């Protein structure tokens, strides 16, 4: 069954590990998937960006070209305006002959040339345009030539020429006149008046001729001008047409570019939309994968939690199973062992005695197995704690040797031991666990050795005044083990081979318990073995060196005085247990009554006066815990103080603590030995009767000093697993007692009896809880006397006794503290 549970737990753990592994692998593939999708999405976004950038750059370029076309149109307009201006300036000049217009004209020419160049630079893309531009260039040139011609016609020197002609005519006339003058002088005297008149006529005639010539020229110029202007008009019209054509071409190209840009924008938008849709789909896919992953992850976590819960439940079930099985097995085992012991005390035939011994051995073996399983459970749950007691290790070894000697003898094996003289006589530690380690190792060695010897060597090392390391080596000449088998022997429920279990039997727990116990002691364990030759197991356990005075392992003779006639109520649902207890108690002359459950027990206890109740804890109708609680709450002062010993097969620490918290007086774990039960009962009776005895002693004014007996059980029960608290309370007890003594002495000197009474009252409480009953009684007596002014006469005597008792109490507490530390 245990193997099955263990296997189940292992399978479950494996399943969880597998699920976790699967989870990890899914997580890994998820990360890859997400990474891939993110990479594709990233590439798409980059591509979208690049395409959008290129497309929009193209669109911007197209729009820029459109702007250029607009600039071109503007420049063409400006060119035409310049031509018109030039035209106007020429006309203005021809009319006004003002040189300003001429200057403006030449400015216009410069601007026109520049504009033509600009236009040529802007637009070169089509052949058609180039032809038009060449034509425009030609036309503009022609127009400018016409205008130049017009300007040539506007000769400013033409009047001068005309005047020069007149002047020439006049000069020729003058030359003729001088000649004529000479003749005239000669002829002066001839007829002056008539000659002058002739000259004027000639002059007028000449001027008239010049004028007519000039008029003729003027007319010719006018005609030429008109012809030039007509020509200019035609050229201007052509230029206008050409510019219009250029502008129209530009507009058409601009329209085409705009169309292309719009198309580009549209295409780009479509592409971006496609990329966006694709990216969106990818994001959706990614979201889905993530959501799926999260959902799966949650599922896995849930499954893991569930598996963990199941594993924990299984673990708890294992503990519960062990506790229940232990309880169920221990209860009948209690009867088997108990009745066997009872039977063994009766006169038996030899064969009957042998049979009985077999039953006893079997029962002991069964108990041993159960204890092993429970110990293992406690060790695994870290609930097993070690005691610190002074003990004689040699005695422990002797005890163990005497137990295993029979087995060795049965197999004809030599059982040897070597005890090193340097081993301290007393060690401080847990003798029960050392015994368990020794027993397990020796049992194991004997079990697997068919011939030869089993030897135990004990020694010490690393020893000083306080500490020592106890070394023990158990060697045999048995079947031995190979390396692989050695690796497995410390595992629970494992033996070297399956065949070993069949051949030699055993639970396979012994060595794993030994290993765990050694580790609990902070010790080390080593195995050396050769297959077919034997095995040697060495352990080293550190111990404090104990003191002989504090050694508590002692066996006392049972004193059963005072048992006769005491009334005991046995409460147990199992008839055979009641019968067994009845049989045992009857031997000590107790008067016994029985109850089958808690309810009956309460009724019985209320109806009759009992000296003690032996209460089973697990019972139907009302369990022992509820019954104890009810009794302790009783209004009946005698009943609520009745000593109760809990009898239980419960073995868990929690159950023990729970039972102890009820206010029980003692605890007996089933199966119990008769002697242990009687000792426990004796101790409890002694404690309850101590008060009466002491009163009687005081009454008889016996001056014999009695050491105050401290009982640490109560304090220990308040701190079952907390040594720190226990030690702290002990220190506190000593401190308050010492300080209280100092103060009470001072108040006594001052004879302030009220203060003495108050101090005694204060000091008495801790004494009660440490079982310092005599000290407590003395303090209460002092308090009472102090409050009734009756202390003056007895103070010296009371103080002397108080000092004596408190010193003893402090000393005992210090001893307990030393032991604990």
């Amino acid at each position: 069954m245990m193997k099955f549970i263990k296997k189940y737990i292992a399978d479950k753990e494996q399943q969880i590990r597998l699920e976790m592994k699967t989870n990890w692998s899914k997580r890994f593939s998820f990360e890859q998937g997400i990474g891939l999708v993110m990479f594709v999405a990233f590439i798409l976004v980059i591509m979208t960006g690049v395409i959008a950038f290129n497309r929009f750059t193209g669109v911007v370029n197209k729009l820029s070209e459109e702007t250029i076309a607009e600039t071109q149109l503007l420049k063409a307009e400006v060119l035409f305006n310049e031509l018109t201006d030039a035209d106007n300036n020429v006309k203005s000049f021809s009319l006004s002959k003002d040189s300003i217009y001429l200057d403006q004209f030449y400015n216009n020419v410069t601007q026109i040339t520049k504009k033509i160049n600009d236009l040529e630079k802007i637009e070169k893309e089509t052949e058609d345009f180039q032809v038009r531009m060449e034509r425009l260039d030609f036309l503009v040139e022609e127009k400018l030539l016409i205008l130049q011609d017009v300007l040539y016609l506007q000769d400013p020197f033409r009047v001068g020429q005309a005047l020069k002609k007149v002047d020439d005519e006049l000069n020729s006339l003058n030359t003729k006149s001088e000649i004529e003058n000479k003749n005239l002088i000669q002829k002066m005297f001839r007829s002056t008046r008539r000659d002058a008149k002739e000259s004027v006529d000639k002059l007028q005639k000449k001027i008239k001729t010049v004028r007519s010539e000039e008029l003729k020229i003027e007319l010719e110029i006018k005609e030429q001008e008109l012809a030039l202007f007509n020509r200019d008009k035609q050229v201007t019209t052509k230029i206008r047409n050409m510019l219009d054509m250029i502008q129209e071409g530009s507009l058409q190209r601009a329209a085409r570019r705009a169309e292309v840009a719009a198309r580009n924008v549209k295409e780009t938008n479509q592409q971006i939309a496609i990329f966006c849709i694709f990216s969106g789909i990818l994001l959706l896919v990614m979201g889905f994968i993530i959501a799926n992953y999260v959902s799966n992850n949650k599922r896995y976590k849930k499954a893991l939690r569930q598996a963990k819960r199941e594993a924990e439940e299984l673990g708890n079930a294992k503990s519960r199973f062990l506790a229940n099985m232990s309880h169920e097995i221990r209860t009948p085992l209690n009867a088997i062992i108990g009745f066997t012991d009872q039977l063994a005390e009766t006169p038996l035939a030899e064969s009957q005695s042998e049979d009985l011994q077999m039953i006893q051995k079997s029962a002991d073996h069964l108990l041993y197995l159960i204890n092993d399983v429970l110990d293992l459970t406690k060790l695994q749950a870290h609930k097993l704690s070690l005691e610190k007691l002074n003990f004689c290790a040699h005695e422990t070894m002797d005890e163990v040797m005497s137990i295993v000697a029979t087995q060795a003898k049965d197999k004809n094996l030599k059982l040897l031991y070597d005890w090193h003289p340097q081993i301290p006589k007393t060690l401080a530690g847990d003798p029960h666990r050392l015994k368990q380690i020794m027993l397990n190792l020796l049992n194991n060695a004997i079990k697997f050795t068919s011939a030869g010897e089993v030897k135990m060597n004990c020694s010490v090392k690393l020893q000083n005044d306080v500490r020592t390391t106890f070394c023990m080596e158990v060697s045999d000449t048995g079947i031995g083990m190979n390396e692989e088998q050695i690796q497995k022997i410390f595992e629970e429920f494992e033996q070297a081979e399956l065949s070993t279990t069949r051949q030699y039997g055993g639970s396979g727990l012994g060595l794993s318990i030994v290993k765990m116990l050694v580790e609990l002691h902070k010790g080390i364990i080593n195995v050396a073995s050769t297959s077919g030759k034997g095995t040697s197991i060495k352990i080293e356990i550190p111990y404090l060196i104990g003191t002989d005075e504090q050694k508590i392992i002692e066996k006392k003779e049972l004193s059963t005085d005072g048992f006769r006639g005491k009334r005991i109520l046995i409460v147990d649902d199992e008839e055979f247990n009641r019968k067994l207890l009845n049989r045992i108690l009857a031997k000590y002359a107790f008067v016994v009554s029985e109850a089958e459950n808690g309810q009956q027990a309460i009724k019985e206890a209320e109806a009759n006066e009992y000296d003690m109740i032996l209460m089973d804890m697990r019972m139907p109708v009302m369990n022992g815990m509820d019954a104890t609680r009810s009794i302790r709450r009783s209004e009946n002062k005698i009943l609520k103080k009745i000593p109760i010993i809990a009898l239980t097969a419960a073995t868990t620490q929690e159950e023990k603590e729970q039972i102890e918290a009820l206010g029980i007086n003692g605890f007996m774990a089933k199966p119990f030995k008769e002697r242990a039960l009687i000792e426990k009962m004796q101790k409890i009776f002694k404690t309850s009767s101590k008060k009466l005895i002491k009163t009687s002693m005081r009454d008889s004014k016996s001056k014999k000093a009695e050491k105050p007996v401290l009982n640490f059980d109560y304090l220990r029960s308040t701190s079952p697993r907390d040594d720190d608290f226990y030690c702290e309370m002990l220190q506190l007890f000593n401190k308050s007692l010492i300080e209280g003594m100092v103060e009470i002495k001072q108040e006594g000197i001052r004879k302030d009896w009220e203060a003495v009474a108050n101090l005694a009252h204060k000091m008495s409480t801790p004494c009660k809880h440490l079982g310092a009953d005599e000290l407590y009684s003395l303090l209460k007596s002092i308090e009472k006397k102090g409050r009734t002014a009756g202390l003056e006469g007895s103070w010296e005597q009371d103080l002397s006794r108080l000092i004596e008792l408190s010193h003893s109490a402090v000393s005992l507490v210090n001893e307990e503290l030393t032991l604990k530390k």
Partner: protein
Amino acid sequence: MRTNERKLKIAVVEDNYFYNKILCRQLQTYTNVLAVENNFHFEIVSVTSAFDVSLFQSGEFDVAIIDYFLDENVLGTEVLKKIREQSSSCKALVISQSDNIVYKIKSNVEQFVEFVCKADRYAISQICYFVETAMEMKSESKR
């Protein structure tokens, strides 16, 4: 400040440091079990002096466990009256080393007060039962 439904606030006024510690320890152990079994929360406020301000700054108490004879000639019943000014429904348990104090208490305190003699071996168990009963009563009254 009202205490919450599933919470029991306990005041321990005991001038003897030793007894105070041991009582609180036992109460703590006992109430830990009760807390788990009954889904209750317990809070223990412990003082060794009647003049400890933390006693009156901790809000309302459901249970008060008070020593009768306190230091500086203060009586537990006086402290109880003070506590009840703040916590009118506080259940009180007076503890004392002397058995006969019970009569004094009954004559001095109008409202119901339980008494436990510290000298009794089962005194602390009785105190624990008192706390458990208080818890049960509170639990039932809130139902």
